[in-house]
């Protein structure tokens, strides 16, 4: 009797936590993008990564945040990197995209068969148009 009860109890906790994580990630990437499009000082990428990490309540370490830049005049599928075609990645009018992913390990082993290592991967993406001119150093 106690096992089914605990299973339901942990399922309830896991469901709540999963929903919380997903909502937090979405909010964090949006906050990171909002920071990126208005940030005027040097070290833009590190600033965005730290913002996303802080806003995600440190669920995501800064190293796991991906910041990409796209030039609409070139391609929105291939990110622009420093020195490619002489384009400045973060110049005004370009698009900044922030991606994060989080491996969610359920408290109870009810979902443990999901995925290779028994976790669910949640991801969130946000993007917007850079507005600062002249662009700050990356």
């Amino acid at each position, binding site marked *: *009797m106690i096992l089914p009860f605990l299973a339901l109890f942990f399922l309830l906790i896991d469901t709540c936590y999963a929903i919380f994580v997903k909502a937090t990630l979405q909010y964090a990437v949006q906050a990171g993008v909002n920071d990126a499009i208005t940030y005027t000082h040097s070290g833009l990428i590190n600033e965005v990564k730290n913002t996303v990490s802080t806003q995600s309540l440190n669920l995501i370490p800064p190293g796991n945040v991906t910041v990409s830049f796209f030039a609409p005049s070139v391609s*929105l599928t291939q990110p622009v990197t420093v020195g490619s075609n002489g384009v400045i990645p973060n110049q005004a009018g370009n698009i900044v995209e922030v991606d994060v992913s989080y491996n969610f390990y359920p408290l109870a082993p009810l979902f443990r068969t999901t995925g290779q290592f028994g976790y669910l991967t949640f991801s969130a993406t946000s993007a917007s148009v850079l507005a600062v001119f002249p662009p700050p150093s990356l």
Partner: protein
Amino acid sequence: MNVVRTRRTSNNRRRGSSIIEFALVGSFMFLPILAGLATVGLSLVTALQVSSLNSNAGQMFAAGVDFTQSSNLAIVGKLSGNLNITGTSGYGLLILSEIDGTSNGNTCSNQIIVGNSAIGSSRYCPNPPSVQSGFTALMGGSALAVGQVSYVAETFYNNPLYAWALAPHGTGTGIYTSAVF
């Protein structure tokens, strides 16, 4: 001996009745609470995603990103994530409208529709180039002056997976959000 046998029988009966109680409480209280919690929670997360997508796509559209090119639409598909708003199918619809102030009043000069158009239609430009009076109300009662441009982003999302659990209380209209740039 009779006393011991009576106690065992009584314990067995209690255990049996507690199993029935657990089954009743589990099926009529615990599982509906869990289903409701998951449904409301997932709907809230979806609303957050829809709002974020609408805001991001609207900002890019207003900044001049050409979404008539299919390669540029890829970023919308990426932003929509598991909402899967791409092509002409799915449970979501994104409508981007450009409204211009002209000497003949407001006209919807450019409209881009991404996703399943059967889900809904624009509340401000359902039949371009005409603009609904709701847009003027949205702008505080005055139409755009000649030369002024406004960009409207609208997103619908209606997943039938959520409808069943919200059936007693939900309205079935899904999630709608709009933003003006």
